[in-house]
């Protein structure tokens, strides 16, 4: 186990949550954020379970802004 000597971040990065009710499976999110979202057998996005990495956060923001259904949410709540 490596020790992390850096000071802990004040707030962790947000999580990405998919509003499955709003999502219509258009799939543009997975195209714009391939490192963050994958599509399931029916073409609906699967978000990573934990907090996003800095790199994922950048692409997730782009995907959330591009979603025609406004179905992607960056949330700080658990």
């Amino acid at each position, binding site marked *: 186990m490596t020790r992390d000597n850096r000071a802990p971040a004040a707030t962790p990065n947000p999580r990405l949550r998919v*509003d499955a009710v709003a999502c219509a499976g258009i799939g543009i999110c997975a195209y714009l954020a391939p490192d963050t979202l994958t599509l399931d057998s029916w073409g609906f996005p699967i978000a990573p379970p934990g907090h996003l990495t800095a790199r994922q956060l950048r692409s997730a923001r782009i995907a959330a802004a591009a979603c025609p259904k406004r179905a992607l949410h960056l949330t700080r709540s658990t």
Partner: protein
Amino acid sequence: MSAAGRRLLHAVDQRPEPPDSPTARILRRAGSRPAWQPVLLDTVAVYSAHDRTLLRGPRPEPLPAHHHRYGQRPRTSWTQGDRLLDLIESVGLTGRGGAHFPAATKWRTALNAGGGGTVVANGAEGEPASAKDTALLEHRPHLVLDGLSCAAEAVDAREAIVWLHHSAVNARRSLLAALRERRTGAVDTVPIRVTVGPDAYLTGESSALVRALDGGPALPTFNPVPAAVRGIGNRPTLVHNVETLARVALLARPGGTAQPPGVLLTVLADDELRVVEAPPRATLGDVLAKVAPDRPATSAILVGGYGGSWLPWDDAAHLRLTQLDSGPASSISLGAGVIAPLPAHACGLVETAAVLDYLHRSSARQCGPCMFGTRELADRLEHLARGDDHHRAAIRKIDRLLDELRGACGLPYAAAQLARTALTVFADEIGEHLQRGRCSRPLPYHPLLPIPGRPG
């Protein structure tokens, strides 16, 4: 036994213990610790499994009898509200609707979000094999209303609502009579009303009921912010199962922790739902021996209801309720407190397929992965049960499907949990179906588990 032998035994039985014998000391010590007593429900209430009508059981308890049994409800001013919240936290009270979310966490969130909101007592019991909420509402309406009032006062709510299924006629009647009694006694400080929703599995889902009480359809919704922060009318909304509130009512009373209530269970046997309060230290075997002693030989048991887990009976019989009743982290939970023994002559695979079909039909069809996934899962299990699908690859496909099931509410996860445990527990059964191409039970085989909307 000979007559002489019987006389001898009788004589031994009748012989008084000398006052200071070791046995007498042990008996005295056992006597000093009070034996476990039911607190919430002191008789077994029996309901029909098909329409949840009362077959045998106690009547609604009127207010004077309620006060005689439990004492008056203390007012929960905000200092006492804090004390009550600490108490709820220290005893680790969790949501009895099935999710076992810590009640104190929800409560604190609502408090921090400010007052002027709503508290909802959720009595819309969606789980087809559960009747414990119905039993509480029909027999102890005042205890549920006491808890609702305490919660409403503690979070400074403006209104309190009891949410029921449309068909829960007896529960509604018992509540309305109780509210009339309370109005003359001025028991409640926050106005309480009783509201009903459609008779559907999802009506009692907390986001669905918040949406319905806010003027929308009674269907689940995705909330980036919890209802405890922003719910009905954009105000903090606290949704608690009726049993959770009954427990709050007991805790609020002076000395409320002295005699903790047991585990409220619904046992599904012989087309009956038997509601019983069981001692927490009891094993599943103890419970069934007491509540359903005449049942046929048991091969497996469904724990936690239709979204719960199948367990092989030989292992499960020795499990204590405390081992199962351990919060959201445990993979096998009592859920809303449902246990259903499966007779050895029944086919677990066909039963599971019937329940999955019910869950798929109950889906709100709002979320793609549930709309397609729960349906595909139900279809695949049905094919497997009928023996249409002879290929072992079918099992692998089901495995992959289980990981992809998800949605805004618990329904797809419930379906996945039931199917996942069925694949393990009924592995032999499934092998036989694959080999023979049909069920090994005499055909036609009709599922024993009651499915709403299907003749019994």
